[in-house]
Every structure is written in structure tokens, then in C-alpha cells.
């Protein structure tokens, strides 16, 4: 099967900021993304667990989107420009997709 090279961008983000990030992605023209809830994690701010949380700000999510390599830089700049201080870990990897038309 013929495959087409794309980039997969993954952003870890707090619940309180998720809406702002997705709004930003939409206005940056990203065609789609998916969000997964984290159950636990550890970082500079220490370790946490979703069952040990309360309130509307609690919780973290991993959002990823598959984009065309040509759009990657624009996307990253848009994301960092807006939520620089709050955005969590951002990582990028290579993936291949079968249907290239939608990205």
C-alpha cells in the first residue's frame, strides 16, 4: 500500500488549558486532533494521579494531531506563541498514512 509521510505532534496539557489549545489549533488551520486523558504522571511539578484530584482545573490530557510536514513549523509557532508559559511537553515524530488528502 502506498504511504505518505506526515508528522505526529503530541502536546501534554492541563484540563484548564485544553480549550484554549484546541481553539488555537483550530484557528491555526489544523484539520483534526485527538485527545486522551492521562491517568497519572510525573514531571517537574511532581507526581500526580487522576483519582487524587479535585476541581475544574485538575487532570491532564495528551493531545495529538497528524499534520503535513509543511504545516509543522507554523503549527508549533502558533502553539508556543499563545500558550508558551503553560504548554506542557511537546514532541514530534514521523508517521505514515494511507490517505494523504485529509491533512
Amino acid at each position, binding site marked *: 500500500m502506498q504511504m505518505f509521510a506526515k508528522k505526529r505532534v503530541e502536546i501534554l496539557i492541563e484540563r484548564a488549558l485544553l480549550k484554549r489549545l484546541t481553539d488555537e489549533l483550530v484557528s491555526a488551520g489544523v484539520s483534526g486532533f485527538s485527545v486522551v486523558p492521562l491517568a497519572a504522571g510525573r514531571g517537574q*511539578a511532581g507526581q500526580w494521579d487522576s483519582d487524587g484530584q479535585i476541581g*475544574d482545573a485538575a487532570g491532564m490530557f495528551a493531545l495529538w494531531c497528524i499534520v503535513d510536514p509543511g504545516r509543522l513549523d507554523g503549527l508549533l509557532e502558533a502553539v508556543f506563541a499563545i500558550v508558551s508559559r*503553560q504548554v506542557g511537553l511537546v514532541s514530534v515524530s514521523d508517521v505514515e498514512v494511507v490517505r494523504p488528502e485529509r491533512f
Partner: protein
Amino acid sequence: MLALAVQNLVSPPVLFFGMGLGASLGRSDLSVPEAIARFLSLYLLISIGFRGGAEVAHQGLTLTLVATIAAGIALSGGLPFLAYAFLRNVAGLDHINAAAVAGHYGSISAVTFVAVTGALTQLALPFDGYMIAVAAAMETPAIFSALFIARTGRGRTEGEMPKDFLREIALNGSIVALLGAFAVGCITGERGMTSLKPFLLDAFAGFLCIFLLDMGLIAGRGLRDGWRSLSVPVAAFAWVMPLVGAALAAALAWLIGLRAGSTAVLMTLGASASYIAVPAAMRLALPAANPAIALTLSLGLTFPFNLTVGIPLYIAAAQMIAE
């Protein structure tokens, strides 16, 4: 008052809170699933909102309602300035964290509200149903005061007001649930109460116990992880500020001429600190603040303080004031 304090201390909700606290300090793996915690918080808001509304439908609106709501807004908007002054000058916290914590202490804690109304009911001390509307009115002014404080000072750029922020704050889920249920209670009155009593009233104490068990678990974890980042004067703030808030609330209640029960409720609202709605707002508006500080103070120190020592104290004081 001591008898009341003891009785309050050995009530099931407080004991379940203590059980959670102990379990989590002892690193037990006991936990309440996140979806359940969110449901319980929704249930509590709907139950107290509905009961407040049904009460108002029963009593009608009294003249003092507007005055009490105004007092609540003044407290919520004003207390952050006092809190900030203490945190900066006495406790030595930095500007942005002091502003964020101050926002938490102007706002209120719905569960502390529930606890005081429970204690009043057991003492057969009546309070006004509209106090729930006062509680709802006190949720948000503090957020704006915190933003105002954060922006003040030379060259400050902190405290941006994100797009849509106003609407997000005003239509925050907790407030909508509280006021929506209040409205349903007002409209359906006694007829609604009859059909919902088993769920919203009779089962309330049980749901509250499980919620408080979870709060204890979370508070214990917060204390375990967070106490290192707290200096002694910052921790002292968590026990001093409630007394300041309660005292100011008492003064306002006395001016308005509230009865003892409602005075105790207003004092408790003044004394309590938010840990549900305000943290989310602060993450958006003051991203540079460390959320763990405010949460450890409000949930780990102030909340148990109010639950055990504060509420009996406020009730005793309210009875003296209103006499």
C-alpha cells in the same frame, strides 16, 4: 461551644474526612474514581441549590436578601486585598502567587457551606434559604480582584484576561448547577421537593460522607507533597485568614441584622476558600502562579480548620452577635 465542637468533630462527615486524611497520609491505595468525585460534586451543588430554592419558594423573598447579596459580593471582592497584604508583607510570598492565593480566599467552598448548614440543622438554628444565592454570588468577584491585584504595580504584565474569560467565569459549571437547581427549586417548590426528597435530601448525608472521604484523601496527598514548599508564615495564613474573613462577615451580618443562623452561614462563607472553581480560573489568567500552593493551603489547611474548629466557633459567635 465546646460540646458543639466535639459533636461536630465526631459527626460522620468529619470522621470520613479524617479517615481519608489518615489513609492518604499512611499511603493507603484507597481512592475514589475521578468520575464519581465529579458526580458527587455535581450532586452536592444540585442538592443545596434545589433546597435553597425550595426554601425561598416557601418563605418568599425577604427584604434583607439584596443587602446580604451585596455584602457577600463586597466580602468576596474585598477579602483578596487583605489576603494579599498579609501574604506579601507578613508571609513574604511573591507577587504573583500572593495574588493567586488571595483569589482563592475571597471565593467560597461549597462543602464548607454544606457543613455549616448541617451543623445548624442539627442545632435547630434556622437560617435563610436565600443564603445559597449569596454563596453563588460570592464565587466569582474574588477572581476579578485577584486579576486586578496581579496587574497592579510597575510594569506588570501578568494577569491577562483571556478571550471569553468573562463568559467562562460566569457560566462556570459549578455556578450553573447551583443557580440552575436553585431556580428549579424556586419554581417547583413543595411539589418538586416531595418527588426529589429521597434523592436530594435523605441520601445527602451519605453522598456527603463519600465526597468528604475523597476530599480527605486529596488533602492528605496535598499535605504530603506540598508541605515542603510552605513556609511557616504562609501556613499560618491558612488559619488566620478564615478568622479575618469570618470577623468581617460578622460585622456585615450585624449591620444588616441577619438572624443567628444566617450570620453563621455568612461568616463561614467569608472564612472558607475555594478549591474547585477558582483554581481553574487562576490557571487561565495567572499561569505563572504555582497551583499547588493555593490548593495545599485551601484544601489541606483551611478546609479542615473550618470543618473542625471554625464552624463551631462561627456558630457560637453568631449566636452572641445576633442576640
